[in-house]
């Protein structure tokens, strides 16, 4: 079973790869809207990628008010 740290790193790696941001340039406490420059529709895209990668469902309302990678990872972790 993944630790939260592993989950967080996978979230960062996924975001970096799919939104063309240099690997290693993202940190857990970063605001993903600002760092990735994404809008709400791209957030949904990220949600799909995360769900497919982790094999979970993550209801949109769990992401409401979440803007940093660490908190997003904790939401994912609670469904693993």
């Amino acid at each position, binding site marked *: 079973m993944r630790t939260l740290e592993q989950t967080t790193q996978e979230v960062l790696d996924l975001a970096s790869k799919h939104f063309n941001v240099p690997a290693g340039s993202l940190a857990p406490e970063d605001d993903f809207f600002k760092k990735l420059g994404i809008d709400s*529709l791209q957030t949904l*895209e990220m949600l799909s990628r995360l769900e497919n990668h982790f094999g979970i469902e993550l209801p949109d309302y769990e992401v409401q008010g979440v803007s940093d990678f660490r908190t997003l990872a904790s939401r994912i972790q609670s469904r693993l």
Partner: protein
Amino acid sequence: MKSFTGQSLRWIWRDGVIELTLDRPPANEIGLAMLEELEKFVAVIDALAAETSACIIYSERKHGFSAGADLRELYQGAAQLSAEDRVSGVRDFLARIHRAFNAIDAAPFTTIAAVHGVCFGGGFELALTCDIIVADKMARFAFPELRLGLIPGFGGIPRLKRDLGNAFIRDLLLTGRSVNATRAQAVGLVAQLAAEGESLRIARATAAQIVKFDGVTRAAAKKFIKPIPYEELRQEIDLFCDLFARPIVMAALKKFVESTDAMPHLP
């Protein structure tokens, strides 16, 4: 009319298959412009039926199949009217939408929605008129209407009830959440999953298979197994209009239209 190019959509008939492409920036929002062109398509269904085995509906827009009803147009149109005229205007619009969607639902050829990205609200309801939904793994389906104080008004609830179990429908409707294509396939909403960007290719392969079969048999089988829930569709319009008459709906529409929220498309 075997081909048409409009402001919101275009279609072309080729070798027994119609490809209807939704292409209205930014995300194929369904308002008057899209409706008028869908009505043009509906008007040619009978003329094309004898030579048509399948129709694929898909989107050229990057963000997805359709983000749903044009809420900006709805708000701006309604804001200028009295409360009574607002409701009658919405009722007239819904009646037209239902006529168009019912005609697509009942089309005598097999309809395939090739879905990617967002398939929300009215866009989801358009996909539900189709016989088969092919969705790529990045597709998401949702009925976010509850956050506006509304229910889906383009026929979504009766069509979902026709196809799926009530528990899943309650989850979608009462939380407003979106579900991914994998989950949608697991519950029977999506017939075939595609890799990212491949839904159109798979829809075309499916259409090529359908073309092989006798048209009379295919149309008869479809009519037999896919009843149109006309009475429930009428009830949906009535319920929608009752809910729409309340002030909280205009307030919610105003909030959506004026939102600078990072996530206006989330419930």
